[in-house]
């Protein structure tokens, strides 16, 4: 190997790590600055620069105050209810739909897939203009149940994740069950559904994070912020009179992103693979 090659390799390594460090720094800086500020007392916040480290890393007052002022106990309860219901129903609906689309050949199979694909291309903000009227007529404004039903609609990414998984489950499994006289319902619930577990976990994580973070529809349809706030919309409390008390706001922000952070740390692999499946197929 020539000297030039070696120099090239060293330069490449340096550039490689420099860019990684630089862009990672850019990615975490806004969040880190929030963490720093969340641990500052009011006095510290007003007198020191935002990037100065707090004196006491165990000062949790802001978190407690933010949690109370934004009514986050209620918000977390609401978010949990929404999350559990939406995940349960969308898993049921999504896996069943994927089963039919993957296992049966019938007229309309491709049309249904295309309908879901096209639906995913429509920008949500624009659609809500008309969805609002439907929600209003159904009496779903300020109704947790209505919001949940709206969110249950299965999305193309989960369908792709399930279908891809079904493709890898051999059809001979179905056939031998049919010979044994099992009905299609039995085949699905007793044989295929348990095998789908990894795909279900992946799509639940993605859909779960999405549902937890959803705020536009939540703010449109769950307008009563004292009773129906979700974690995301509870942060609206900090708009207005508290608008510049950033030590408090940052604490609220950090609380709101902790669950997503925990899920991310624990389930990185599933998140990455789920995203990739959805995108490559789409």
């Amino acid at each position, binding site marked *: 190997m020539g000297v030039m090659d070696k120099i090239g390799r060293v330069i490449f390594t340096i550039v490689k790590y420099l860019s990684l460090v630089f862009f*990672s720094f850019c990615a975490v800086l806004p969040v880190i600055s929030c963490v720093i500020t969340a641990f500052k007392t009011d006095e510290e916040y007003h007198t020191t620069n935002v990037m100065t480290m707090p004196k006491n890393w165990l000062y949790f007052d802001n978190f407690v105050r933010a949690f109370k002022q934004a009514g986050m106990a209620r918000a977390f309860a609401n978010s949990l209810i929404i999350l559990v219901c939406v995940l349960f129903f969308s898993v049921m609906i999504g896996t069943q739909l994927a089963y039919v689309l993957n296992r049966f050949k*019938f007229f309309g199979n491709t049309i249904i897939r295309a309908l*879901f694909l096209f639906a995913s291309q*429509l920008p949500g903000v624009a659609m809500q*203009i*008309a*969805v609002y009227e439907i929600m*209003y007529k159904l009496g779903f404004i300020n109704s947790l149940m209505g919001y949940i039903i709206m969110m249950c609609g299965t999305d193309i990414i989960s369908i792709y994740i399930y279908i891809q998984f079904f493709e890898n489950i051999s059809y001979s499994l179905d056939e031998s069950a049919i010979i044994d006289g099992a009905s299609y319902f039995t085949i699905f619930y007793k044989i295929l559904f348990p095998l789908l577990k990894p795909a279900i976990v992946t799509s639940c994580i993605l859909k779960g994070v999405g549902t937890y973070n959803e705020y536009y529809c939540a703010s449109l349809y769950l307008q009563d912020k004292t009773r129906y706030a979700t974690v995301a919309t509870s942060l609206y409390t900090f708009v207005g009179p508290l608008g510049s008390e*950033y030590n408090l706001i940052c604490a609220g922000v950090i609380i709101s992103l902790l669950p997503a952070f925990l899920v991310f740390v624990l389930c990185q692999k599933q998140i990455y693979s789920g995203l990739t499946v959805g995108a*490559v197929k789409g």
Partner: protein
Amino acid sequence: MKKKRTFKEWIKSRDGQQVLVMFAFMVVPLLLLFVFTYLPFGKMFSFSFYNMKYIGDRKFVGLKNYIKVFQRDDCFDALKLSLYYMLGSIVQLSLALYLATILSFKVKGGNIFKGFMFFPFLINGIAIGFIFKFFYTRGFVFDTVLQWCGFNLEDLPYWLKDQRINNFSLVGTSVWRYFGQNMVLFIGAIMSVDSELYEAAMLDGANRFQQFKYIIVPSIKTIITLNVILSITGSLSAFEPPYVITSGANGTGTYFVVMHEIAHTQQKVGLASAMAIILLLIIFVVTIFQKLFFKYVFKNSEDEDPRAEIRRQRAIKRSIKRQQRLSAAGGK
């Protein structure tokens, strides 16, 4: 002769069972899809011909709403802002591709870097709004970091107020949020390439750039194309950064922010619907145009197995190497 079956017999047969299970499993998802996507889609179209609020009388006005959209300055000024977001998405995609390439080679702590850069994607929109209001406030985080780099506070603009710069600031937050996600998608695509190809290329002495050009790019062409299309339609419908950070003040209101304001604050539902339909049409046309464009551009290379190209390159390189070795030996 075919025996006629009663309905009862039919439903017990395999065919009947199949139809039954298909109906049972598809009725709910299709109903939801209809009620929350296609019905509103149709309604929106009809709303756009009325002068109406959500509640109360509605009056048929024909195409007046559409004409109004073209007459209103705020709508078209807003559409111009999508150029900023398009620029941002170009930066975002190139950055993501660059980092994905780096991370697909052997890197110490690669997963940690990947995690850091991906995490912003998982933060909820409102939190992002607060984080960046704080980040860009005069003398706060961004200004402090720039001061560390030697800038004077007096020379720095107001990132969210100054109309020359505030759209760039907002686009920056969008890039910040999504580049990690794009990167993960690209890494996924790169990893799906047979690792033998890389090894073979390494053995043949292909350098990083050659690996990038001849192995990585051809194999992830589809996903790059897809992301370019998504990012252009995405910039036309840019909404979140201005909505949560500036509420569209100081000339940062994108088309959708203006539309949201007209629909839900001013309650001019018909006008907002017309705006939505116009944008959907634009997106539709752009998408078709892009698909055709890419089809045309990739037509020649698409039919070909990417590996054939690599094999050819490899053969050429090998012959060059052999010559070099020969001439080096001869020189001694």
